[in-house]
């Protein structure tokens, strides 16, 4: 607490402190804030918002705002988000006052309860209106807390993510895994709070710490790219001789990173290495080498380094990244483009950005006037233009409207996974503008995979058999309904899965490919069929049609070849007792067939 006072008065660099405030909403948010205060929050001011006056009085943060003083008379919301929302609306002026003028806001909230799920979206809205750069750390409830709370949490999260510049979600269920089961409840929650407060602290440090190679808000946003993502966060600090490796080790050990394994899936990873003056380039290099071991070759590494006197002889490593959450995996594809669009313009080179300061970036991304802001917000979040004017006035009906919007693609995907069902023709055209630009990409990938397959053809007859079996099914189905429409929509969904399919074909050995291809049998099928149907659009192609166009020629023959090879499986039986085993393929030759026969 003393440290906290110190922070309030203290020697904070004006530039950084001017902008930053950490707000905790509800009980969980307050806990995180307390944790931060106890550990000495050096850079930011803390503000607690709560309905429950008892909880508020025990909070150690500097500023406190009681929500719903008249409505709730100092009691909690009893888990009702609508009460929480009204309570927040009651205190709207105070909140606005507290939020105004900050360059950056961190808001931490535990969703699911009344205050958190009710008030936090309101606070976010206000922050957005005030043009503050907002990063939200939201904790999702335990699944044992029941569906209702989870639903409330999801609803709130939906709203929040529309207002916030970045949302980082923590799953309490996962937190449970991270903590030794026999730890006391208090310890467990403390540990969870600690993880969150550490994340906030590290995020602040990353963005505000003066750097040699600086990391700006833009980098942070890039690292937290995908909406509805699962945040990967790791922080390690170590002293001593082997500090660089110890620090990175610690960072990777952070529960959210799962020993660095999850980094493999991330699109971009933000890494900041900071240390005192004694930090050597070699140490930075070691850290980065270690990191590169854990990320995929495609991954973009956003790298920053800086010296910080306060670290003296220790070295800290911060790793921030995100991977699509389980729900987001499907809808990520349509959204990523918009997410990229909405990102603030990144300024020049990192070196230039160094002096200009993060706060300015934040401002840039969020225009000053509240009205313009709301429109901007609307655009960024893909709110239909017609609704954007109403953002302030009517927030609730709009919420419902919009909540459908992100949900839709998921449904569509669900449809696609059941490919045999004739697709609803009425709805699809709405999506066709989205999908059309995607289509041209497909043939290329198609040919790639086609080639890969032709190599792979011999390798896993089982997978191939599965695939062609699927195809047969599909043909029989598609010959019924006209396929043109289902194609275009079909092509929108499988793009992400396709990518994974390609990867599976290229980077793994035969056996593995087999299992993966079998598991993704359906999508694999879509991708092989899409282009030729897309090109011939109207008429259904019977495989027997004498090919006139060269392109058409290529596709059916490919198909025909596949089928033929499948047929060959039986007569090629030259494998005798190995007929039913995993094939042994070396250089494309099936070694199970007698060498004597092959060489002849």
């Amino acid at each position, binding site marked *: 607490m003393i440290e906290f006072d110190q922070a309030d008065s203290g020697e904070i660099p004006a530039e950084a402190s001017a902008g930053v405030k950490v707000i905790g909403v509800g009980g969980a948010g307050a806990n995180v804030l307390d944790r931060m205060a106890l550990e000495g929050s050096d850079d930011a001011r803390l503000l607690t918002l709560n309905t429950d006056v008892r909880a508020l009085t025990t909070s150690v943060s500097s500023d406190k705002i009681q929500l719903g003083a008249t409505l709730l008379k100092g009691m909690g919301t009893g888990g009702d988000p609508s009460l929480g929302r009204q309570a927040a609306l009651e205190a709207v002026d105070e909140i606005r006052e507290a939020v105004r003028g900050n360059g950056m806001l961190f808001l931490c909230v535990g969703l699911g309860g009344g205050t958190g799920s009710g008030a936090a979206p309101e606070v976010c809205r206000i922050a957005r209106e005030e043009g503050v750069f907002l990063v939200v750390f939201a904790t999702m409830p335990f699944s044992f807390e029941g569906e209702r709370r989870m639903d409330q949490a999801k609803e709130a999260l939906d709203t929040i993510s529309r207002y916030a510049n970045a949302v980082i979600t923590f799953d309490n269920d996962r937190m449970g*895994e991270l903590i*030794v089961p026999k730890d006391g409840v208090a310890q467990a929650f403390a540990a969870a709070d600690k993880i969150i407060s550490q994340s906030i602290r590290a995020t602040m440090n990353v963005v505000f710490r003066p750097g040699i190679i600086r990391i700006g808000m833009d980098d942070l946003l890039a690292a937290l790219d995908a909406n509805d993502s699962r945040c990967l966060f790791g922080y390690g600090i170590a002293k*001593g*001789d*082997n500090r*660089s*490796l110890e620090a990175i080790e610690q960072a990777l050990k952070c529960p959210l990173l799962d020993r660095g394994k999850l980094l493999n899936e991330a699109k971009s990873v933000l890494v900041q290495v900071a240390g005192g003056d004694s930090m050597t380039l*070699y140490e930075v290099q*070691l850290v980065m080498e*270690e990191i590169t*071991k854990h990320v995929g070759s495609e991954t973009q590494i956003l790298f920053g380094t800086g010296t910080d006197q306060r670290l003296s002889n220790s070295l800290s490593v911060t790793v921030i990244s995100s991977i699509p959450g389980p729900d987001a995996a499907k809808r990520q594809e349509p959204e990523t483009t918009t997410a990229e669009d909405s990102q603030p313009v990144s300024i020049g080179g990192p070196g230039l950005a160094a002096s200009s300061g993060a706060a300015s970036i934040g401002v840039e991304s969020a225009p000053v006037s509240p009205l313009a802001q709301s429109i901007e917000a609307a655009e960024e979040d893909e709110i239909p233009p017609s609704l954007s004017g109403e953002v302030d006035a009517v927030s609730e009906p709009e919420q419902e409207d919009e909540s459908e919007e992100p949900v839709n693609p998921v449904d569509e995907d669900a449809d696609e996974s059941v490919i045999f069902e004739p697709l609803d023709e009425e709805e699809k055209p709405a999506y066709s503008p989205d999908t059309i630009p995607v289509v041209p990409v497909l043939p290329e990938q198609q040919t790639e995979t086609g080639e890969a397959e032709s190599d792979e053809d011999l390798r896993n007859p089982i997978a191939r058999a599965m695939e062609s079996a699927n195809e047969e099914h599909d043909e029989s189905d598609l010959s019924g309904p006209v396929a043109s429409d289902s194609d275009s929509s079909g092509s929108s969904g499988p793009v992400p899965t396709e990518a994974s399919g390609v990867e599976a074909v290229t980077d*793994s*050995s035969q*056996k*593995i490919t087999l299992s993966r291809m079998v598991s993704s049998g359906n999508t694999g099928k879509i991708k092989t069929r899409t282009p030729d149907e897309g090109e011939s659009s109207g008429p259904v192609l019977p495989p027997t049609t004498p090919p006139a166009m060269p392109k058409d020629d290529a596709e059916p023959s490919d198909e025909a070849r596949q089928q033929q090879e499948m047929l060959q499986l039986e007569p090629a039986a*030259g*494998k*005798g*007792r*190995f007929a039913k*085993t*995993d094939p*042994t393929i*070396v250089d494309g030759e099936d*070694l*199970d067939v*007698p*060498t*004597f*026969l092959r*060489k002849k």
Partner: protein
Amino acid sequence: MASSNIYVGLEIGTSKVCIVVGEVRNDGAIKILGVGQHPSAGVRKGEIVDSDTVQTCLHDALSRAEERSSVEVNTVFLAVTGSHVKSLNNRGTIRVADEQMEITTEDLEEVKKIARDVPIPKENGYIHSIIQHYFVDGQDKVLNPLGMLGQKLEADYHIIHGVKTRIQNTIRCVRDVPLEVEDIVFSPVAAAQVVLNREAKNEGALLIDVGGGTTDYICFVDGAVVASGCVAIGGDHITNDIALVLKIPLARAEKLKVTHGSASLKNFEPGEIAIEGESGKTVEQELLNQIMNARATELLSVVAEPLEKDGLLPRLGKGVFLTGGSSLMKGLDEVASEIFGIPVQQSGSASMSGPSALFENPQYATPVGLIRYAQLLDEQRPKRGALSKLGQRFEKIFGGGK
């Protein structure tokens, strides 16, 4: 621990299930107490495809081994193989702390951890990581850097990994017997322990274990493992080839292979061989040899290819050691020396006491090698008893969640 340890090696091969019970005396000598084996079924290409059948064979082999050795077998060292087993070499580097200078065991552990940290497919797990040699500040081929002064410690490791689930399937099969698996060993690693002596390992040697369903190999240069792997082709393939080409049943093809066949195209007496049981049907010796030769040539070429690419063949001073049941095939050594261009010898395990005649047979190289492997493991980690090993295993299993 008692003054002597009894270890049990189990190999579930494509052609036979073999259990060897061996006693390691405190002076380091190994005495084979008993062997139980049973022709195996339900194994293809070194991997179990029919668990129930394998268990029957396993029970049978086990009871014979227990009977002959008068030892109740509880835990075994299990040899694993299969085409999914892959290997690679990787170097780990750490910087030794400034003040510390002297290299400690922790550093070695650390460098091992780093060296092991290579991108292997997600579904794969490590089977072995074998130290090749250390480098201290660029000085190469340091065998034991412990206590040396240095700033940079590098270690080359040979890492053998395989698909976890496949290995677990084998383990589960053994556990169902029930037998506890103390450790898993990649077959050629075990076989090398008895087939190659120290001299051979130092001068460079390639061990090729031609089994029923797989051919495993391991290559030593300068005393360190530099390459290893498994090709899913073995003696069964040759039998199969003969059966398919001559259109005769497998059993007769097998007999033909063993009694008359040769992989050599040179030293044979041309003539007709009557195929037993097939009235009046004969086969040209030349044709038979051609079939076998084609297969053997291809098989050994597949083994030789990666080694040649890495330029390892010229460094094998002691040449090629053929072992495994199918290495008994006539003419195989001839084919091998043609392909590898270096001396080839057939070899079983040596330097054991016990009913030794048995163990000079190359068929037993792997299971006997397991005993030796167990012994070495014990020597390396003298303080670690079976209990703590078990504990460690549990830690491995349950520790993942932390």
